[in-house]
């Protein structure tokens, strides 16, 4: 061990201070810990912020036979969230509004009000969807009727195949990602 009070030895060749063993060890110590810190920190940050890289593509979901939805009606349907986990409990069952216009013409709306995501309710007699939170109202085709929502209801891409109503879904629709 060199005495810390001693001046660092001068290098004979260019006169620059020569790093003694203590300085060297300090630098190695910092360097190794910076490396170790990065090796711990980067995976932690990557883990915590994985949503910034992870993609959640829409998945095909069946709402069951078309016969469940009589022509001219709008009915509540539910489907199992394709991204569900075994321990999701009731939250795995996602509701949506199915409007059977005629024949194979359907509209499927997300349950979430486009204002702040509360569940809209269908009123058959007045043919309106009403939101219980801030009073958003939509017409039967999902268009905005009144209240604060900035747009009409989020609509799923849906089609009929072999007598089954299919749609693409799996994510919570928000204004940032309204494709459902």
């Amino acid at each position, binding site marked *: 061990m060199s005495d810390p009070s001693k001046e660092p030895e001068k290098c004979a060749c260019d006169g620059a201070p020569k790093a003694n063993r203590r300085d060297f060890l300090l630098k190695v110590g910092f360097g190794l810990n910076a490396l170790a810190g990065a090796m711990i920190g980067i995976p932690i940050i990557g883990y915590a912020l994985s949503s*910034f890289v992870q993609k959640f593509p829409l998945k095909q979901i069946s709402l069951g036979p078309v016969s469940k939805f009589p022509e001219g009606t709008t009915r509540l349907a539910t489907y199992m969230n394709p991204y569900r986990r075994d*321990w999701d409990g009731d939250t795995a069952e996602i509701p949506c509004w199915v409007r059977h216009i005629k024949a194979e013409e359907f509209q499927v709306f997300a349950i979430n009000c486009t204002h702040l995501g509360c*569940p809209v309710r269908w*009123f058959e007699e*007045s043919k309106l969807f009403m939101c*219980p939170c801030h009073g958003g109202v939509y017409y039967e085709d999902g268009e905005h009727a009144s209240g604060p929502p900035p747009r009409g209801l989020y609509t799923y891409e849906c089609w009929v195949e072999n007598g089954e109503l299919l749609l693409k879904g799996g994510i919570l629709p*928000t204004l*940032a990602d309204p494709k459902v």
Partner: protein
Amino acid sequence: MTDILRNICLWVDDRLHVSKMFAATAGHHVPKSSGSWFYVLGSATLLCFMIQVVTGIMLAFVYVPSASEAYSTLMYLTFQQPLGWYLRGIHFWGSNFMVGIMLLHMTQVFLFGAYKYPREITWISGCILMILTLGLAFTGQVMRFDEDAYWGLGIGAAIMGRVPFIGENLVHLMLGGPIISSDTLSRFFSLHVFILPGSVIALVSLHLRMVLTKGISEYPKPGQLVRKETYDKEYAAIIKKEGVPFFPMAISKDLVASAVVIFGVLFCAAYFGPKMPNGLADPSQIDTLPRPDFYFLWIFAVAALLPDYTETFILLASGPVIILVLFALPFFNATGERSWRRRPIAVITVIVLYVGIGILTYLGHTSPWSPQMDAWTSVPTERSRVVGRSPLELQGLVLLQNKQCRNCHAIDGIGGHRGPDLMDIGSRLNAPQLTRQIFQGGGNMPAYGNKILPNELDALVAYLVTLRPEGVPPARDSAVPGVPPRQTIESSVRAAASGAQ
């Protein structure tokens, strides 16, 4: 015997330096004037936090943060676990007391000008503690994992979704996946029991460290100005002249206040009990009225009342702006008068904030902007609104109920309040105007043109024109020469008089 005890104490003190630590902390000198009832609020907030930590750890013995189990463990905690209801009650009321006392503490510090030089960091750390406390309150209501928690998360996600560019990522970050699920609950649990309380402990340490380094502010006197050049010397002089050790000279009021707070929390827990979870967090149960806990009701109200074109901007910008203003306050208002008696703007600010937030909370509670979803099947119609009507008008009355008009329109105050009360509609709009309004909507009313048959519309309008206070004439069509208003009033008065006889 006493010698042995004494020696043990001295040994412990020699090894742990307890007496030095005590002198540097609880024994530090404070201005005598700070031994005031106004200065107990900070320690009372800290006390609430300690209650929350202890009861929270106890609750975590039983609670399972999983979407499939959370609700049933909460039910078990409340109804079967011995004293579970009481600990839940203490935790719930402890949080209410903590938010309430913290806000009073902040108000007192603001009104007493205690944020001014040299206590900027004390104030800023306090502001961060306020944000963390509100964060704990929000994540805490998610722990109940009932329908309010579920849709509250939905509201949070919808606000995140309004952030430009990275909104989608933020939504997924908040939810821990593409949709509200067990992963969402798990990360809110982690926030509620690890990240936020840990941050609170760190910030409280800083907050108290500042109390020790820069001292607790002396009770402000009108006319005694803070000057950067002289304040430190003046404060040192005050401490020298009338400084007393915090313990045991100045702590007595804090102790009394602490006991009062604990008694208050215990009383509320025992008398009112814990907040019961609403229905299951089952999104397919859509007959729900999502409402946040009361401290966020005012934000819920703001979201309903903002004009839609300002909404995204205000929802996203107001938080950072408020934080920025709070952080900047001790810098742009660093010196000068501290007493609230000489700071009218500070007093007005506090009054405006309290009244404003109070009114918004009341509005959030009553939510007049929301349709009353079951009004069309549940609310009655006053007898006087029925008798004496023709069959056509009565058919209109039935339609008024069946077409869900009353979800938004009250009659005599009964029903929804989204739209105007219909009790005097006949005196404000005439038949053609009513027909047009119902047919094509407008003024925040949906158009009913394709939801109502022409004969139904006629019946509805026929009924609506009869809705007007006694003695008030019907609204007149200005294009048609009508009965002079005076004559109408006279005839109504006469009719009313003869009716009374």
